[in-house]
Protein backbone atom coordinates (compact mmCIF):
# COMPACT_ATOMS: atom_id res chain seq x y z
CA UNK A 1 0.00 0.00 0.00
CA UNK A 2 1.38 3.35 -0.93
CA UNK A 3 0.60 6.62 0.73
CA UNK A 4 0.81 9.94 -1.07
CA UNK A 5 3.80 11.89 0.11
CA UNK A 6 3.27 15.02 2.16
CA UNK A 7 4.47 16.97 -0.83
CA UNK A 8 1.78 15.42 -3.05
CA UNK A 9 -0.86 16.01 -0.40
CA UNK A 10 0.16 19.65 -0.10
CA UNK A 11 0.06 20.03 -3.87
CA UNK A 12 -3.45 18.60 -4.16
CA UNK A 13 -4.63 20.81 -1.32
CA UNK A 14 -3.26 23.84 -3.16
CA UNK A 15 -4.98 22.77 -6.38
CA UNK A 16 -8.22 22.23 -4.51
CA UNK A 17 -7.91 25.64 -2.85
CA UNK A 18 -7.28 27.43 -6.15
CA UNK A 19 -10.18 25.59 -7.78
CA UNK A 20 -12.46 26.76 -4.98
CA UNK A 21 -11.18 30.32 -5.30
CA UNK A 22 -11.66 30.33 -9.06
CA UNK A 23 -15.11 28.91 -8.65
CA UNK A 24 -16.00 31.57 -6.08
CA UNK A 25 -14.75 34.33 -8.38
CA UNK A 26 -16.80 32.96 -11.24
CA UNK A 27 -19.91 32.81 -9.05
CA UNK A 28 -19.79 36.45 -7.95
CA UNK A 29 -20.67 37.60 -11.46
CA UNK A 30 -24.30 38.70 -11.16
CA UNK A 31 -26.94 36.67 -12.96
CA UNK A 32 -29.73 39.13 -13.83
CA UNK A 33 -32.30 36.47 -14.74
CA UNK A 34 -31.83 34.64 -11.47
CA UNK A 35 -31.88 38.01 -9.75
CA UNK A 36 -35.20 38.84 -11.36
CA UNK A 37 -36.62 35.50 -10.21
CA UNK A 38 -35.45 35.99 -6.62
CA UNK A 39 -36.72 39.58 -6.67
CA UNK A 40 -40.26 38.19 -6.60
CA UNK A 41 -39.62 37.84 -2.87
CA UNK A 42 -39.03 41.59 -2.55
CA UNK A 43 -41.90 42.82 -4.70
CA UNK A 44 -44.58 42.73 -2.01
CA UNK A 45 -43.00 45.70 -0.29
CA UNK A 46 -40.49 47.15 -2.75
CA UNK A 47 -42.81 46.58 -5.77
CA UNK A 48 -41.93 44.58 -8.86
CA UNK A 49 -40.45 47.68 -10.51
CA UNK A 50 -38.38 48.44 -7.40
CA UNK A 51 -40.06 51.80 -6.83
CA UNK A 52 -40.84 51.05 -3.16
CA UNK A 53 -43.78 52.60 -1.38
CA UNK A 54 -44.57 55.40 1.02
CA UNK A 55 -47.80 55.32 3.02
CA UNK A 56 -48.39 58.76 4.57
CA UNK A 57 -48.20 58.60 8.36
CA UNK A 58 -47.37 54.89 8.18
CA UNK A 59 -44.75 52.55 6.78
CA UNK A 60 -42.31 53.35 4.02
CA UNK A 61 -40.25 50.94 1.92
CA UNK A 62 -37.28 52.33 0.00
CA UNK A 63 -37.05 52.41 -3.76
CA UNK A 64 -34.37 50.03 -4.98
CA UNK A 65 -34.64 50.67 -8.72
CA UNK A 66 -31.50 52.27 -10.09
CA UNK A 67 -29.66 52.20 -6.77
CA UNK A 68 -25.98 51.23 -6.75
CA UNK A 69 -25.68 47.42 -6.83
CA UNK A 70 -22.67 47.20 -4.50
CA UNK A 71 -24.41 49.44 -1.98
CA UNK A 72 -27.45 47.11 -1.95
CA UNK A 73 -25.19 44.03 -1.62
CA UNK A 74 -23.57 45.58 1.45
CA UNK A 75 -26.93 46.44 3.01
CA UNK A 76 -28.29 42.92 2.43
CA UNK A 77 -25.13 41.39 3.92
CA UNK A 78 -25.51 43.73 6.91
CA UNK A 79 -29.20 42.75 7.36
CA UNK A 80 -28.17 39.10 7.12
CA UNK A 81 -25.43 39.46 9.75
CA UNK A 82 -27.52 41.70 12.00
CA UNK A 83 -25.10 44.63 11.59
CA UNK A 84 -28.08 46.56 10.23
CA UNK A 85 -31.24 45.87 12.22
CA UNK A 86 -34.68 45.70 10.70
CA UNK A 87 -37.33 43.23 11.75
CA UNK A 88 -38.89 42.85 8.30
CA UNK A 89 -35.68 42.76 6.30
CA UNK A 90 -33.65 40.40 8.47
CA UNK A 91 -35.62 37.19 7.69
CA UNK A 92 -35.70 37.96 3.96
CA UNK A 93 -31.96 38.68 3.85
CA UNK A 94 -31.33 35.42 5.66
CA UNK A 95 -33.20 33.49 2.97
CA UNK A 96 -30.67 34.69 0.39
CA UNK A 97 -27.18 33.29 -0.02
CA UNK A 98 -24.32 35.54 -1.07
CA UNK A 99 -24.76 34.80 -4.78
CA UNK A 100 -28.49 35.50 -4.60
CA UNK A 101 -27.74 38.79 -2.85
CA UNK A 102 -25.44 39.75 -5.72
CA UNK A 103 -28.02 38.70 -8.32
CA UNK A 104 -30.98 40.45 -6.77
CA UNK A 105 -28.99 43.66 -6.17
CA UNK A 106 -27.84 43.69 -9.78
CA UNK A 107 -31.44 43.20 -10.91
CA UNK A 108 -32.79 46.17 -8.98
CA UNK A 109 -29.77 48.30 -9.97
CA UNK A 110 -30.61 47.62 -13.62
CA UNK A 111 -34.17 48.98 -13.32
CA UNK A 112 -34.83 52.63 -14.19
CA UNK A 113 -35.14 54.92 -11.18
CA UNK A 114 -38.54 56.56 -10.80
CA UNK A 115 -38.51 60.19 -11.85
CA UNK A 116 -40.64 61.51 -9.02
CA UNK A 117 -41.81 59.73 -5.92
CA UNK A 118 -43.58 62.51 -4.10
CA UNK A 119 -45.67 65.51 -4.87
CA UNK A 120 -44.56 68.88 -3.48
CA UNK A 121 -48.17 69.51 -2.35
CA UNK A 122 -47.61 67.18 0.61
CA UNK A 123 -45.14 69.62 2.19
CA UNK A 124 -44.99 73.27 3.15
CA UNK A 125 -42.91 75.76 1.15
CA UNK A 126 -40.88 76.47 4.28
CA UNK A 127 -40.11 72.76 4.72
CA UNK A 128 -39.00 72.41 1.13
CA UNK A 129 -36.81 75.52 1.31
CA UNK A 130 -35.05 74.28 4.46
CA UNK A 131 -34.73 70.80 2.94
CA UNK A 132 -33.20 72.19 -0.23
CA UNK A 133 -30.73 74.21 1.84
CA UNK A 134 -29.63 71.17 3.87
CA UNK A 135 -29.39 68.99 0.75
CA UNK A 136 -27.36 71.37 -1.39
CA UNK A 137 -25.64 74.09 0.67
CA UNK A 138 -25.83 72.73 4.20
CA UNK A 139 -26.15 74.59 7.50
CA UNK A 140 -22.56 75.16 8.52
CA UNK A 141 -23.54 77.25 11.55
CA UNK A 142 -24.65 73.90 12.95
CA UNK A 143 -21.98 71.93 11.08
CA UNK A 144 -24.61 70.14 9.01
CA UNK A 145 -22.59 69.34 5.90
CA UNK A 146 -24.66 69.52 2.67
CA UNK A 147 -25.94 66.04 1.72
CA UNK A 148 -24.40 66.46 -1.73
CA UNK A 149 -20.88 66.70 -0.25
CA UNK A 150 -20.93 62.90 0.08
CA UNK A 151 -24.02 61.77 -1.83
CA UNK A 152 -22.75 63.47 -4.98
CA UNK A 153 -24.13 65.91 -7.55
CA UNK A 154 -27.91 66.28 -7.15
CA UNK A 155 -27.68 63.71 -4.35
CA UNK A 156 -27.86 60.89 -6.90
CA UNK A 157 -25.15 58.88 -5.16
CA UNK A 158 -21.35 58.61 -5.30
CA UNK A 159 -19.46 55.35 -5.57
CA UNK A 160 -20.72 52.28 -3.75
CA UNK A 161 -20.68 53.75 -0.25
CA UNK A 162 -22.80 56.88 -0.63
CA UNK A 163 -26.22 55.93 -2.02
CA UNK A 164 -28.60 58.02 -4.08
CA UNK A 165 -30.98 59.77 -1.68
CA UNK A 166 -32.78 62.02 -4.17
CA UNK A 167 -35.93 60.34 -5.42
CA UNK A 168 -36.13 58.28 -2.25
CA UNK A 169 -39.28 58.01 -0.16
CA UNK A 170 -39.99 60.60 2.54
CA UNK A 171 -40.71 58.08 5.28
CA UNK A 172 -37.64 56.01 4.55
CA UNK A 173 -35.19 58.98 4.65
CA UNK A 174 -36.85 60.33 7.80
CA UNK A 175 -36.71 56.95 9.55
CA UNK A 176 -33.09 56.29 8.63
CA UNK A 177 -31.93 59.71 9.87
CA UNK A 178 -33.84 59.14 13.10
CA UNK A 179 -32.26 55.69 13.42
CA UNK A 180 -28.78 57.15 13.06
CA UNK A 181 -29.61 59.89 15.51
CA UNK A 182 -30.77 57.32 18.07
CA UNK A 183 -27.96 54.81 17.38
CA UNK A 184 -30.45 52.32 15.96
CA UNK A 185 -28.50 52.20 12.71
CA UNK A 186 -24.71 52.20 12.72
CA UNK A 187 -23.55 50.40 9.59
CA UNK A 188 -22.27 53.59 7.99
CA UNK A 189 -18.49 53.63 7.53
CA UNK A 190 -16.74 55.66 10.25
CA UNK A 191 -20.09 57.01 11.54
CA UNK A 192 -20.03 59.52 8.70
CA UNK A 193 -23.83 59.74 8.61
CA UNK A 194 -24.42 59.39 12.34
CA UNK A 195 -22.22 62.40 13.13
CA UNK A 196 -24.33 64.64 10.88
CA UNK A 197 -27.73 63.15 11.82
CA UNK A 198 -27.05 63.90 15.49
CA UNK A 199 -26.77 67.62 14.71
CA UNK A 200 -30.16 67.73 12.98
CA UNK A 201 -33.40 68.76 14.65
CA UNK A 202 -36.59 66.80 14.11
CA UNK A 203 -37.76 69.59 11.78
CA UNK A 204 -34.50 69.40 9.81
CA UNK A 205 -35.00 65.68 9.30
CA UNK A 206 -38.58 66.14 8.09
CA UNK A 207 -37.49 68.99 5.82
CA UNK A 208 -34.61 67.20 4.14
CA UNK A 209 -36.67 64.02 3.71
CA UNK A 210 -39.43 66.12 2.14
CA UNK A 211 -37.10 67.87 -0.31
CA UNK A 212 -35.22 64.74 -1.36
CA UNK A 213 -38.45 62.81 -1.91
CA UNK A 214 -39.60 65.43 -4.43
CA UNK A 215 -36.37 65.32 -6.46
CA UNK A 216 -35.65 63.16 -9.52
CA UNK A 217 -34.06 59.82 -8.68
CA UNK A 218 -31.99 59.77 -11.84
CA UNK A 219 -30.29 62.13 -14.23
CA UNK A 220 -32.89 63.21 -16.79
CA UNK A 221 -32.31 61.40 -20.08
CA UNK A 222 -30.93 63.59 -22.88
CA UNK A 223 -33.75 64.99 -24.99
CA UNK A 224 -33.31 64.03 -28.61
CA UNK A 225 -34.63 66.62 -31.05
Amino acid at each position, binding site marked *: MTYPSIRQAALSLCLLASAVTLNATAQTEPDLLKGQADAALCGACHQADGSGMNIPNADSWPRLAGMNADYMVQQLLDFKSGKRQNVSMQPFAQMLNEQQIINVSAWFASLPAPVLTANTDSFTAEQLARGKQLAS*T*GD*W*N*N*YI*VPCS*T*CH*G*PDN*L*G*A*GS*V*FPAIAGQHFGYIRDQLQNWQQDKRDND*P*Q*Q*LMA*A*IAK*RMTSDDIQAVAAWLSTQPGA*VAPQQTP
Partner: protein
Amino acid sequence: MKNLSPALRLRAGLMLAAGLLLAGPMSLAQAQLSEESLAVLAGMAPGAAAPADNQFVHIPPTLEDLEASNLNPELKKVILRGYDLFTNTQQVRERYSLNDMNCDSCHMGAGRLPFSSPVWPAAVILPNYRPKNDQVNNIEERIAGCFSFSMNGEPPAYGSDDMLALSAYHQWLAKGVPVYQPGGSMYGRGFGKLADSAEKPDYHRGKATYEAKCSICHGEDGSGLKARGEVVFPPLWGDYSYNWGAGITRLFTLAGFVKHNMPIGQPNTLTDQEAWDLAQYIDAQERPQDPRYTGDVRETRELYGESFHKHTLYGLEVEGRLLGDHDNVGANKDFLKPEALRSRTFN
Protein backbone atom coordinates in the same frame (compact mmCIF):
# COMPACT_ATOMS: atom_id res chain seq x y z
CA MET B 1 -29.54 97.59 36.80
CA LYS B 2 -28.57 99.43 39.98
CA ASN B 3 -28.05 96.19 41.94
CA LEU B 4 -25.50 94.88 39.52
CA SER B 5 -21.77 95.30 39.99
CA PRO B 6 -20.14 97.69 37.52
CA ALA B 7 -18.58 94.73 35.68
CA LEU B 8 -21.89 92.90 35.35
CA ARG B 9 -23.61 96.10 34.31
CA LEU B 10 -21.04 96.58 31.57
CA ARG B 11 -21.51 92.98 30.44
CA ALA B 12 -25.31 93.25 30.45
CA GLY B 13 -25.07 96.53 28.56
CA LEU B 14 -22.82 95.01 25.95
CA MET B 15 -25.06 91.99 25.58
CA LEU B 16 -28.02 94.26 25.11
CA ALA B 17 -26.04 96.20 22.50
CA ALA B 18 -25.05 92.94 20.82
CA GLY B 19 -28.65 91.81 20.82
CA LEU B 20 -29.66 95.02 19.07
CA LEU B 21 -27.22 94.38 16.25
CA LEU B 22 -28.04 92.12 13.33
CA ALA B 23 -28.82 88.64 14.56
CA GLY B 24 -26.47 86.95 12.09
CA PRO B 25 -23.07 88.51 11.42
CA MET B 26 -21.07 89.55 14.48
CA SER B 27 -17.69 91.20 14.84
CA LEU B 28 -16.80 91.75 18.44
CA ALA B 29 -14.11 91.07 20.96
CA GLN B 30 -14.83 87.86 22.83
CA ALA B 31 -15.83 89.66 26.06
CA GLN B 32 -18.67 91.32 24.18
CA LEU B 33 -20.08 88.20 22.57
CA SER B 34 -23.60 87.21 23.47
CA GLU B 35 -24.39 83.68 24.60
CA GLU B 36 -26.16 83.23 21.29
CA SER B 37 -23.09 84.20 19.27
CA LEU B 38 -20.88 81.93 21.35
CA ALA B 39 -23.31 79.10 20.63
CA VAL B 40 -23.18 79.82 16.88
CA LEU B 41 -19.39 79.81 17.05
CA ALA B 42 -19.36 76.48 18.87
CA GLY B 43 -21.74 75.11 16.22
CA MET B 44 -19.42 76.23 13.43
CA ALA B 45 -16.36 74.60 14.98
CA PRO B 46 -17.44 71.55 17.01
CA GLY B 47 -14.74 70.44 19.41
CA ALA B 48 -12.51 73.47 18.78
CA ALA B 49 -11.16 75.69 21.54
CA ALA B 50 -13.41 78.65 22.39
CA PRO B 51 -12.01 82.12 21.70
CA ALA B 52 -9.59 83.56 24.24
CA ASP B 53 -10.44 86.85 25.94
CA ASN B 54 -8.11 88.94 23.78
CA GLN B 55 -9.12 87.43 20.45
CA PHE B 56 -11.12 89.18 17.78
CA VAL B 57 -14.16 87.12 16.81
CA HIS B 58 -16.09 87.47 13.60
CA ILE B 59 -19.06 85.40 12.47
CA PRO B 60 -19.32 85.98 8.72
CA PRO B 61 -22.79 86.61 7.26
CA THR B 62 -24.70 83.84 5.50
CA LEU B 63 -26.53 83.77 2.17
CA GLU B 64 -29.76 84.42 4.10
CA ASP B 65 -28.16 87.55 5.58
CA LEU B 66 -27.21 88.64 2.07
CA GLU B 67 -30.74 88.20 0.84
CA ALA B 68 -32.09 90.19 3.80
CA SER B 69 -29.50 92.97 3.46
CA ASN B 70 -30.18 96.31 1.79
CA LEU B 71 -27.18 96.14 -0.52
CA ASN B 72 -27.70 97.23 -4.10
CA PRO B 73 -29.30 94.37 -6.07
CA GLU B 74 -26.49 94.53 -8.65
CA LEU B 75 -23.92 94.07 -5.88
CA LYS B 76 -25.90 91.14 -4.47
CA LYS B 77 -25.70 89.48 -7.88
CA VAL B 78 -21.92 89.96 -7.96
CA ILE B 79 -21.49 88.54 -4.44
CA LEU B 80 -23.70 85.56 -5.31
CA ARG B 81 -21.60 84.93 -8.41
CA GLY B 82 -18.55 84.95 -6.12
CA TYR B 83 -20.20 82.44 -3.80
CA ASP B 84 -21.08 80.27 -6.79
CA LEU B 85 -17.49 80.33 -8.10
CA PHE B 86 -16.13 79.65 -4.62
CA THR B 87 -18.30 76.61 -3.98
CA ASN B 88 -18.33 75.28 -7.55
CA THR B 89 -14.97 76.24 -8.96
CA GLN B 90 -15.13 73.23 -11.25
CA GLN B 91 -17.46 75.26 -13.47
CA VAL B 92 -14.35 77.16 -14.62
CA ARG B 93 -12.31 73.98 -14.91
CA GLU B 94 -9.84 74.12 -17.78
CA ARG B 95 -9.96 77.90 -17.72
CA TYR B 96 -8.80 78.85 -14.22
CA SER B 97 -8.74 75.66 -12.20
CA LEU B 98 -6.87 72.95 -14.05
CA ASN B 99 -7.18 70.34 -11.32
CA ASP B 100 -10.09 68.73 -9.45
CA MET B 101 -10.30 71.23 -6.59
CA ASN B 102 -12.92 73.76 -5.56
CA CYS B 103 -12.11 76.74 -3.32
CA ASP B 104 -14.24 75.13 -0.61
CA SER B 105 -12.33 71.83 -0.85
CA CYS B 106 -10.01 73.48 1.68
CA HIS B 107 -11.92 76.60 2.79
CA MET B 108 -14.88 74.56 3.97
CA GLY B 109 -18.33 75.90 4.72
CA ALA B 110 -18.07 78.33 1.78
CA GLY B 111 -15.07 80.05 3.40
CA ARG B 112 -16.88 80.97 6.63
CA LEU B 113 -15.63 78.43 9.17
CA PRO B 114 -13.07 79.09 11.90
CA PHE B 115 -9.96 76.86 11.50
CA SER B 116 -10.86 76.14 7.88
CA SER B 117 -8.84 79.13 6.71
CA PRO B 118 -11.87 81.44 6.58
CA VAL B 119 -11.35 83.94 3.77
CA TRP B 120 -12.68 87.14 5.41
CA PRO B 121 -9.30 88.02 6.99
CA ALA B 122 -7.78 88.45 3.50
CA ALA B 123 -10.30 91.21 2.78
CA VAL B 124 -9.22 93.28 5.80
CA ILE B 125 -5.47 92.65 6.12
CA LEU B 126 -4.61 93.25 2.45
CA PRO B 127 -2.92 95.05 0.76
CA ASN B 128 0.00 93.83 2.82
CA TYR B 129 3.47 92.38 2.58
CA ARG B 130 3.55 88.62 2.01
CA PRO B 131 6.71 86.62 2.63
CA LYS B 132 5.66 83.97 0.08
CA ASN B 133 6.34 86.31 -2.84
CA ASP B 134 8.29 88.95 -0.92
CA GLN B 135 6.12 91.87 -1.95
CA VAL B 136 2.90 93.70 -1.15
CA ASN B 137 -0.22 91.90 -2.45
CA ASN B 138 -3.80 93.02 -2.79
CA ILE B 139 -6.82 90.72 -2.54
CA GLU B 140 -6.88 89.93 -6.28
CA GLU B 141 -3.21 88.91 -6.21
CA ARG B 142 -3.87 86.76 -3.15
CA ILE B 143 -6.72 85.00 -4.97
CA ALA B 144 -4.46 84.61 -8.02
CA GLY B 145 -2.03 82.80 -5.72
CA CYS B 146 -4.71 80.24 -4.83
CA PHE B 147 -5.49 79.63 -8.50
CA SER B 148 -1.80 79.32 -9.41
CA PHE B 149 -0.81 76.89 -6.66
CA SER B 150 -3.77 75.18 -4.97
CA MET B 151 -5.85 74.97 -8.15
CA ASN B 152 -2.75 74.43 -10.32
CA GLY B 153 -4.32 76.79 -12.83
CA GLU B 154 -4.35 80.17 -14.55
CA PRO B 155 -6.02 82.90 -12.44
CA PRO B 156 -8.93 84.94 -13.82
CA ALA B 157 -7.56 88.24 -15.15
CA TYR B 158 -7.14 91.07 -12.66
CA GLY B 159 -10.22 93.27 -12.84
CA SER B 160 -12.24 90.62 -14.70
CA ASP B 161 -15.87 89.84 -13.85
CA ASP B 162 -14.94 86.60 -12.09
CA MET B 163 -12.13 88.24 -10.12
CA LEU B 164 -14.50 91.04 -9.08
CA ALA B 165 -17.09 88.46 -8.02
CA LEU B 166 -14.62 86.50 -5.90
CA SER B 167 -13.14 89.57 -4.21
CA ALA B 168 -16.64 90.98 -3.56
CA TYR B 169 -17.61 87.69 -1.91
CA HIS B 170 -14.52 87.89 0.34
CA GLN B 171 -15.32 91.46 1.31
CA TRP B 172 -18.96 90.65 2.04
CA LEU B 173 -17.84 87.86 4.40
CA ALA B 174 -15.71 90.45 6.23
CA LYS B 175 -18.68 92.78 6.75
CA GLY B 176 -18.16 94.89 9.86
CA VAL B 177 -14.53 93.92 10.53
CA PRO B 178 -12.21 96.91 10.95
CA VAL B 179 -9.72 97.29 8.11
CA TYR B 180 -6.20 96.25 9.18
CA GLN B 181 -7.59 94.49 12.22
CA PRO B 182 -4.35 92.85 13.42
CA GLY B 183 -4.22 89.35 11.91
CA GLY B 184 -2.57 87.51 14.80
CA SER B 185 -5.49 88.10 17.16
CA MET B 186 -8.22 86.72 14.89
CA TYR B 187 -10.04 83.67 16.24
CA GLY B 188 -9.88 80.67 13.90
CA ARG B 189 -7.69 82.31 11.23
CA GLY B 190 -5.84 79.84 8.98
CA PHE B 191 -6.21 76.17 9.80
CA GLY B 192 -4.95 76.50 13.38
CA LYS B 193 -1.42 75.50 14.31
CA LEU B 194 -0.97 72.27 16.25
CA ALA B 195 1.68 71.85 18.90
CA ASP B 196 4.60 69.69 17.81
CA SER B 197 3.65 66.02 17.94
CA ALA B 198 4.88 63.87 20.81
CA GLU B 199 6.46 61.47 18.34
CA LYS B 200 8.16 62.50 15.11
CA PRO B 201 5.54 62.45 12.29
CA ASP B 202 5.75 59.07 10.61
CA TYR B 203 5.03 58.18 6.97
CA HIS B 204 4.05 54.57 7.72
CA ARG B 205 1.77 55.39 10.64
CA GLY B 206 0.26 58.08 8.41
CA LYS B 207 -0.33 55.52 5.65
CA ALA B 208 -2.09 53.17 8.06
CA THR B 209 -4.32 55.97 9.37
CA TYR B 210 -4.99 57.15 5.83
CA GLU B 211 -6.16 53.71 4.77
CA ALA B 212 -8.34 53.36 7.86
CA LYS B 213 -9.91 56.81 7.95
CA CYS B 214 -9.42 58.72 4.67
CA SER B 215 -9.32 56.30 1.76
CA ILE B 216 -13.06 55.60 1.80
CA CYS B 217 -13.57 59.07 0.30
CA HIS B 218 -10.19 60.05 -1.18
CA GLY B 219 -9.24 56.58 -2.52
CA GLU B 220 -6.30 54.34 -1.61
CA ASP B 221 -4.35 55.99 -4.44
CA GLY B 222 -5.33 59.51 -3.35
CA SER B 223 -7.21 60.20 -6.57
CA GLY B 224 -10.47 61.23 -4.88
CA LEU B 225 -13.92 60.23 -6.08
CA LYS B 226 -15.99 61.38 -9.02
CA ALA B 227 -19.63 60.65 -9.81
CA ARG B 228 -21.10 61.10 -13.28
CA GLY B 229 -17.98 63.03 -14.31
CA GLU B 230 -18.16 65.51 -11.42
CA VAL B 231 -15.73 65.75 -8.51
CA VAL B 232 -17.22 64.62 -5.20
CA PHE B 233 -14.09 64.17 -3.04
CA PRO B 234 -10.93 65.97 -4.19
CA PRO B 235 -7.71 64.12 -5.05
CA LEU B 236 -5.00 64.59 -2.43
CA TRP B 237 -2.08 63.87 -4.72
CA GLY B 238 -1.33 63.13 -8.36
CA ASP B 239 -1.89 65.14 -11.55
CA TYR B 240 -5.33 66.44 -10.53
CA SER B 241 -4.38 67.71 -7.08
CA TYR B 242 -2.66 70.84 -5.67
CA ASN B 243 0.88 71.51 -6.84
CA TRP B 244 4.15 71.67 -4.91
CA GLY B 245 3.76 75.41 -4.37
CA ALA B 246 0.36 75.20 -2.62
CA GLY B 247 0.28 76.34 1.01
CA ILE B 248 -1.13 73.02 2.09
CA THR B 249 2.06 71.18 1.03
CA ARG B 250 3.49 72.68 4.23
CA LEU B 251 3.20 69.94 6.84
CA PHE B 252 1.94 72.22 9.61
CA THR B 253 -0.78 73.59 7.31
CA LEU B 254 -2.06 70.17 6.28
CA ALA B 255 -1.84 68.85 9.85
CA GLY B 256 -3.92 71.82 11.06
CA PHE B 257 -6.44 71.35 8.25
CA VAL B 258 -6.82 67.63 8.94
CA LYS B 259 -7.18 68.02 12.70
CA HIS B 260 -9.75 70.80 12.50
CA ASN B 261 -11.76 69.65 9.46
CA MET B 262 -11.45 65.93 8.75
CA PRO B 263 -12.94 63.36 8.45
CA ILE B 264 -15.86 65.18 6.84
CA GLY B 265 -18.42 66.15 9.48
CA GLN B 266 -16.12 65.08 12.32
CA PRO B 267 -13.70 67.94 13.04
CA ASN B 268 -11.38 67.65 16.03
CA THR B 269 -11.82 63.90 16.40
CA LEU B 270 -8.37 62.73 15.27
CA THR B 271 -5.41 63.05 17.66
CA ASP B 272 -2.73 65.66 16.94
CA GLN B 273 -0.33 62.77 16.32
CA GLU B 274 -2.67 61.26 13.70
CA ALA B 275 -2.98 64.66 11.99
CA TRP B 276 0.81 65.12 11.84
CA ASP B 277 1.32 61.55 10.59
CA LEU B 278 -1.33 62.00 7.89
CA ALA B 279 0.31 65.24 6.75
CA GLN B 280 3.65 63.44 6.57
CA TYR B 281 2.13 60.69 4.41
CA ILE B 282 -0.09 62.79 2.12
CA ASP B 283 2.44 65.55 1.53
CA ALA B 284 5.13 62.98 0.69
CA GLN B 285 3.19 61.96 -2.43
CA GLU B 286 3.94 63.28 -5.90
CA ARG B 287 2.02 66.18 -7.35
CA PRO B 288 2.42 68.76 -10.13
CA GLN B 289 5.56 70.87 -10.19
CA ASP B 290 5.89 74.12 -8.20
CA PRO B 291 5.27 76.95 -10.73
CA ARG B 292 8.40 78.65 -9.34
CA TYR B 293 10.57 75.67 -10.44
CA THR B 294 13.97 76.71 -11.81
CA GLY B 295 14.62 73.37 -13.52
CA ASP B 296 16.40 72.02 -10.45
CA VAL B 297 14.33 70.85 -7.50
CA ARG B 298 17.08 71.24 -4.89
CA GLU B 299 17.84 74.75 -6.12
CA THR B 300 14.12 75.65 -6.07
CA ARG B 301 13.78 74.30 -2.54
CA GLU B 302 16.76 76.42 -1.46
CA LEU B 303 15.52 79.55 -3.25
CA TYR B 304 12.09 79.44 -1.52
CA GLY B 305 13.31 77.60 1.57
CA GLU B 306 13.07 80.28 4.22
CA SER B 307 9.64 81.59 3.19
CA PHE B 308 8.09 78.25 2.25
CA HIS B 309 9.82 74.98 1.47
CA LYS B 310 11.49 74.54 4.86
CA HIS B 311 8.01 73.39 5.91
CA THR B 312 7.51 70.98 2.94
CA LEU B 313 9.10 67.71 1.81
CA TYR B 314 9.72 69.08 -1.70
CA GLY B 315 13.27 68.45 -2.88
CA LEU B 316 13.88 65.96 -0.08
CA GLU B 317 14.28 62.23 -0.32
CA VAL B 318 11.41 60.33 1.28
CA GLU B 319 11.02 56.54 1.07
CA GLY B 320 13.80 56.45 -1.52
CA ARG B 321 12.23 59.07 -3.84
CA LEU B 322 13.46 62.62 -4.40
CA LEU B 323 10.16 64.51 -4.23
CA GLY B 324 9.34 67.05 -6.94
CA ASP B 325 12.22 65.96 -9.18
CA HIS B 326 10.26 66.02 -12.45
CA ASP B 327 8.91 68.26 -15.21
CA ASN B 328 5.26 67.22 -14.80
CA VAL B 329 3.13 70.37 -14.54
CA GLY B 330 -0.09 68.37 -14.04
CA ALA B 331 -3.20 67.52 -15.98
CA ASN B 332 -4.65 69.94 -18.53
CA LYS B 333 -1.73 72.36 -18.08
CA ASP B 334 0.79 73.36 -20.74
CA PHE B 335 2.74 76.06 -18.91
CA LEU B 336 4.70 76.22 -15.68
CA LYS B 337 4.09 79.67 -14.22
CA PRO B 338 1.02 81.83 -14.89
CA GLU B 339 1.80 85.36 -16.04
CA ALA B 340 -0.37 86.72 -13.23
CA LEU B 341 2.41 85.84 -10.75
CA ARG B 342 4.44 88.96 -11.43
CA SER B 343 6.81 90.79 -9.15
CA ARG B 344 6.87 94.46 -8.27
CA THR B 345 9.02 96.77 -6.24
CA PHE B 346 8.63 100.36 -5.12
CA ASN B 347 12.35 101.15 -5.07
